[in-house]
């Protein structure tokens, strides 16, 4: 058996890899040439620039770095969750609404369990905070489940489905909160978590970094990550080898939703109250951060590290412009410009490569 194969020239070689016609790029060069690395370089350049321009280099002070990290925490949680969904080719416009709704439900639960006493103390604070955390995450996950069912099983275009749930979620959030921000959650929440730091690192930022690391490992080394990219790369190919794509998409939507719930909890613990008006652009910011970092909107490619540097870019620009005395409105312009530039450069390489 296999006589033909055994006598053919390729079979006599040690390996099926034949690099004679190509010059393989060393791994360190590949890493240097990725979009994530380019954005990191931009982040560092901007950080140095703003430090040089700010009075006494206050931009690089530990207080400011802490503020930057805290400001990026919620955005990062949304961006990495969205990057995972984009990898499988689905979209979520409702993440900001999910964050708000989760924080409102969480706040209601905390206020229900722990009504501030007359002397300003909070009875059952620990129980209230834990129940609030659970409420936030469950609300986020349920929100994600609904999105997932609409997109994966009813086959509604993800843009439309999540545009719908964006409205519904925001509306329910307003109904539950009567349209005003809920405050009076236990102060222990801020003291022991929201504003707590380990060295220079705020604890909520640590949570977001742990999540991002886990997703990075998931995409690179696990079957779940590989199948996510397979579905985004070719739905029919994934389907034909027996992958249950709808179920996988549902899991991704639940994951993204639950992370929005965690972000909602962090919102509460950061400000000590809900911020129902403050998140209308969150979903689009998450898309921007993910796509700037190299995640493909069309699916098949996820860069968690890219989403991290993309989030950092928005935060550094926002804070840096304020510190050097320029209106933060310019941040929107700058981030929008970088987004288009980054994607345009990609398209150009793609078009040029196809032309040759």
């Amino acid at each position, binding site marked *: 058996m296999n006589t033909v194969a055994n006598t*053919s020239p390729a079979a006599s070689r040690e390996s099926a890899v034949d690099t004679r016609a190509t010059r393989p790029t060393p791994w360190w060069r590949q890493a240097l040439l990725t979009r994530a690395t380019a954005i990191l370089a931009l982040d560092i350049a901007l950080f140095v620039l703003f430090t040089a321009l700010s009075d006494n280099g206050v931009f690089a002070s530990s207080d400011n770095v802490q503020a930057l990290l805290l400001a990026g925490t919620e955005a990062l949680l949304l961006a990495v969750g969205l990057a995972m969904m984009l990898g499988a080719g689905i979209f979520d416009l409702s993440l900001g609404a999910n964050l708000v709704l989760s924080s409102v439900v969480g706040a209601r639960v905390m206020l229900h369990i722990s009504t501030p006493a007359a002397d300003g103390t909070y009875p059952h604070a620990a129980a209230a905070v834990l129940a609030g955390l659970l409420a936030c995450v469950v609300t986020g996950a349920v929100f994600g489940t609904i999105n997932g069912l609409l997109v994966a099983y009813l086959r509604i275009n993800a843009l439309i489905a999540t545009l719908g749930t964006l409205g519904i979620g925001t509306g329910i959030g307003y109904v539950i909160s009567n349209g005003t921000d809920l405050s009076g959650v236990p102060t222990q929440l801020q003291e022991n978590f929201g504003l707590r730091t380990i060295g220079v690192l705020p604890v909520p930022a640590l949570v977001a970094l742990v999540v991002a690391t886990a997703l990075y490992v998931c995409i690179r080394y696990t079957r779940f990550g*590989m199948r996510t990219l397979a579905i985004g790369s070719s739905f029919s190919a994934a389907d034909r080898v027996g992958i249950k794509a709808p179920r996988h998409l549902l899991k991704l939507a639940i994951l993204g939703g639950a992370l929005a719930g965690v972000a909602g909890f962090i919102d509460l613990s950061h400000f000590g109250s809900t911020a129902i008006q403050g998140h209308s652009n969150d979903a689009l910011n998450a898309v921007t951060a993910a796509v700037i970092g190299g995640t493909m909107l069309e699916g098949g490619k996820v860069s968690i590290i890219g989403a991290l540097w993309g989030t950092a870019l928005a935060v550094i620009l926002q804070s840096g412009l304020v510190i050097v005395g320029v209106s933060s409105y310019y941040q929107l312009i700058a981030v929008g410009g970088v987004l288009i530039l980054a994607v345009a450069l990609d398209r150009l390489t793609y078009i040029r490569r196809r032309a040759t």
Partner: protein
Amino acid sequence: MRKGSAIAAEHVGKRFGHVEALRDASINVDYGEVVALFGDNGAGKSTFLRVLQGIHRPDSGQVTIDGKPVEMSSVRDAQEHGVDTVHQDLSLAPDLSVVDNMFLGHELMRSGPLGALGFLDRKQMAERTDAALRELSIALPSLNVPVSQLSGGQRQAIAVARAVMWSSTAVLLDEPTAALGARQSELVCSMMRRVADAGRGVLVVSHDLPRILAMADRVVVLWRGRTAIDAPARDLTVPDVVATMVGYAQETLA
């Protein structure tokens, strides 16, 4: 090598509403044999292939795999019987590496707790991919690049190698040379021969008559849902096949 029939269909009929796609279609592919399935557009090639793939359940007639009658209702059923398909669009995930594509849906997991957490054993997957490609004398610049960076012929080779890897009885190929140039088509033909030599039955549906006729062992020509010719390839010429496909000489040849 096993002897006898790898996959066969006898007197298969299949109707879609008022359309009788297949009336009396038969084919047999032995182990170690390359059988070509020809037919004009609308002759029922695709329907017949889908019956053999398990996608369509025949209204009448019988499909047998490894000599035993089978009832199939999905591609998965066919795969469980050791029959795998190389689709015309190849069904590869362009952003995934060669290794990941080879194992998509059949991933190897790490042993121990990491495996329980869903970690892939990419090392073993790469080794087995390398071995599977070598068995078909396929050489690629890298196994870790996304397949979108490879040429059409290389992608075709990966799709064939994957089907061989997950099949034990037969490999069905749908128009494997349609998107390829002359040299790459020749490579695919020699690869099909090696698949047959490795002990599978090979069934190829194609419009590329001269090339496939020259390399196949047997030829089946469908005409309006019937098997019009089932003969050794060496007894046929391209004009014979074309004449039957368009229906002129059916009486004299059949």
